[in-house]
């Protein structure tokens, strides 16, 4: 828009409220974003048509008495628009709304948290914002289907209808540990997130020991939480050998569910194991072993 048009538009906007609305222009009250529409004018002679709204300001030279045609790509941003037809003798104005297309084209899906403990009531929240192809928030009620699924458990699925463009849900985290896919679907559009359910603290930690030359080989049984879920690999298990006032320790990460290490062999040594707050069994290495 050039400076002259801007000044004209400003004047038109300023005087519009003072003028009687004669509705000499015919325009639909709502227009779908990205659709064709036309504006009817009455009278004769040249005029300038201005449209002002969230998508910007448009200026077009028109011949009064003719239809003014707008193509699908002319107005794609939803919102409230004002229209002015300024001629040498009068200024006509009208208001109309551009609404989002009702066909979902994308979903902004906020899924929280990315990791959480197993079996947590309402622990997972999902919020879906549904947009049309022009990234307009679809304010019309739209069904959104949320689904939490994994290979280990039956999917949880629920459909919620958007309010003012937003649908949300709270779900319990599954009882089994592992990665879960959390989807939100509206129409043909689907947004995917990954939620990881992690087990609790180690429970019933047990280790075994056997001699190997001058060393004792220590190995835990598969480490699980109190619900039987395998504690994740990488979790640190601490082995401590106490002998003759000296200590030997090793922080060993779980690999494939177990932790294993070796320590100096001393008859009479006491060896203990712990992971986080969980302590396991104690081994006293006897002279005869």
């Amino acid at each position: 828009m050039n400076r002259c048009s801007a000044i004209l538009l400003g004047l038109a906007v300023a005087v519009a409220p003072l003028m009687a609305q004669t509705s000499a222009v015919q325009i639909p009250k709502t227009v779908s974003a990205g659709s064709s529409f036309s504006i009817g004018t009455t009278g004769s002679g040249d005029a300038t048509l201005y449209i002002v709204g969230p998508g910007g300001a448009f200026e077009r030279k028109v011949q009064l008495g003719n239809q003014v045609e707008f193509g699908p790509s002319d107005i794609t941003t939803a919102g409230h628009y004002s229209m002015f037809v300024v001629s040498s003798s009068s200024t006509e104005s009208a208001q109309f709304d551009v609404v989002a297309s009702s066909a979902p084209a994308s979903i902004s899906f906020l899924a929280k948290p990315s990791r959480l403990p197993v079996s947590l009531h309402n622990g997972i929240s999902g919020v879906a914002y549904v947009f049309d192809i022009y990234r307009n928030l679809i304010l019309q009620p739209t069904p959104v289907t949320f689904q939490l699924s994994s290979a280990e458990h039956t999917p949880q699925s629920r459909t919620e209808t958007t309010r003012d463009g937003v649908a949300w849900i709270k779900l319990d985290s599954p009882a089994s540990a592992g990665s879960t896919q959390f989807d939100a679907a509206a129409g043909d559009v689907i947004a995917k997130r990954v939620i990881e359910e992690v087990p609790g603290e180690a429970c019933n930690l047990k280790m075994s020991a056997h001699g190997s030359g001058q060393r004792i080989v220590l190995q835990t049984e598969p480490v699980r939480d109190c619900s039987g879920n395998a504690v994740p690999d990488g979790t640190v298990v601490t082995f401590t050998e106490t002998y003759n006032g000296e200590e030997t320790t090793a922080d060993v990460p779980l690999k494939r569910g177990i932790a294993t290490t070796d320590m100096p062999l001393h008859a009479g040594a006491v060896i203990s194991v712990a992971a986080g707050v969980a302590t396991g069994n104690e081994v006293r290495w006897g002279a005869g072993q």
Partner: protein
Amino acid sequence: MTSESNNSGSNKGTVIALAIGAVTVLLVVIGTVWPSQSALANGGSYVPFLASFSSSPEGAVNGLLGKIGRHDFASAYDDLANKSQFTEPDFERDLNGTYASLRTYAALTGFDVYPQHSSADDAKIRVNLHWSSVVGGFSDVRDLDVTKSGDQWRVAWPVVLEAKVPPQVIPVNYLRWDVIYRGAGDDWGSQDVEAPHVRIIDMHPIDRGGSVVVLGEILNEDTVPAFVTVKSSLLAKNGSVIATEDAFDKISHLLLPKQVTPFRIDFRGVAMSQVDSIRMDPSSSLIAASADPVIEIENQKLSPLPNSSLSGELLNQSGQVANIAHVLGTFYDKSGHLVWVSDEYTNRALLPQIPLPFTVALPPDLAGQVATYRVVTSTYISSPQ
């Protein structure tokens, strides 16, 4: 009158300039003829005709250490009395370290010479070598035998030969974590991975030499590795911040799941009486990390006064060389309260299956309070082997 005044000022200036020049020349001569030990250790050139080092046991030791300080290992090796016992590369590896260890990048900043015994033909001298590195200094004490050969004294170097592991294959179930973060072009609704959950499980401020020291421990209670830092702010009664510091290297920054590290934050020059409260600010972020190498800490024991310390040996259970190991000792009293946190970096690389001794200092005045302790270690690896 004006002309006389100008001449007088000009003469004074000449006299001062000449005096400064004379003093400078004098100092240069003094420094050259009687160089300090540190200068000898760091000097870029050696002036043999000015210092007859090998005419006395101490002179021979000073000369040898001067060459070591200048990394002139070939010349130093040539001067040794026992060079038939090891090669020059052995000698250099002993002093300079291997595998990009802390010693490799350290500089000899000085040394102390303590004669222990001396006769006409031999002497025993203890030397304390002071090395400096980017993470602080370390000392290296060696007992040297010095023998007279003809009219020259020569040093027998007590070389520490690098232990070697027989060639072998060590199977390792490699475990590491990689992180895929949200991309710059992702939609605003795209979920990002959460930072690990960490928790300070103990915090205890103490007054140490008129300064505040905050001791504590932090736990990674998540199931993924965390890069942790701990910041602390001392607050006055009116709520204003007196000082803010972080643990810097008095912490193990990488924590595997369920791992605990101690931390120590020093506030130098801030008295405990000024402090009303302390604000702790732990932070964590996801980090691509490996669970290896596993380092066993063997034969840990507390040494009593006067050299109170915690010592032991690190044993690298993997097949990967750790260039530098950082050892953190946490000391507790009988009630389990934190008493002190101290650390040490090993100056030699941690080779697979080869024990490497360490000693973590414990302040003598706190030694009596310590009942139990815990040691953790972290390693720095320059590149995969």
